[in-house]
């Protein structure tokens, strides 16, 4: 016998808000991330701006996936989160390594090679 499941309504936000709003919000987040990467010099803050960009992608994928009621978009978000975690581990290891050698993580001070 199937256990009875409580019916779930279509989320209200989907009925009330147009999908384009989510497109515009994620674009705005994405652009904020790009501006952060281009304007800041602290490697950690640049890195956080990149995380913002990835999160805008997550929001966009989940919005598309929910509005279409198709689970693959949300599965992709899993992969993005997994990859982001792996990247963070490597990125912070690189930053720690540089700090050991230079005592600074300002990308502008790293000018053995021109930035």
């Amino acid at each position: 016998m199937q256990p009875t499941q409580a019916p779930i309504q279509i989320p209200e936000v989907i009925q009330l808000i147009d999908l384009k709003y989510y497109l515009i919000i994620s674009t705005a987040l994405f652009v904020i991330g790009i501006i952060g990467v281009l304007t800041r010099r602290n490697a950690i803050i640049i890195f956080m701006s990149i995380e913002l960009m990835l999160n805008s992608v997550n929001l966009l994928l989940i919005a598309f996936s929910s509005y279409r009621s198709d689970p693959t978009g949300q599965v992709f978000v899993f992969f993005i989160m997994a990859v982001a975690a792996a990247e963070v581990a490597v990125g912070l290891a690189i930053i720690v390594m540089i700090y050991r050698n230079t005592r600074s993580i300002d990308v502008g001070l790293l000018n053995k090679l021109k930035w």
Partner: protein
Amino acid sequence: MKATEIIFYVLTAITLLSASFVVTARNPVHSVLALILTFFCLTGHYVLMNAQFLAAVNIIVYAGAIMVLFLFTIMFLNLQKEDEESKTTLTKMAAVVVGGVLLVVMVAVFRAASVAPYDPATYNTRVGLVESLGMVLYKDYLLPFELASVLFLVAMVGAVMLGKREPGDRHF
């Protein structure tokens, strides 16, 4: 205006404001805290859209693991100081102009774009739950799922190799 709409607009406003604060704050610790706030707001959006499982994972992975790693590094390396000399105003202006143009272009394209609307007749409300995600992940996406473990192995080996203290290196 319904409650959901109000929640949506408030969440959106906080998301964008705190995201802007991440890239403008002078102190890295403030940036991290603003970023955590952004993640929580995004989680709110996920809950609104009925993607409950990803909402939980977002808190655990992003706000939990990734941001703790960031904070840990910042505190460990003692980087809370605001000693960052900023880039020239010209570079900043150029970057903001580039970003603004990109935003305008993309929004203009999206306004003109045709987006498939949601279909109440075929809408499946259980999409964001563990059950349906698990079915897709472990059936259709099994291969990339397994191969993602190679990525983790590489990242683990690499992080240990690069972060390890060699004989003769300073402590922090």
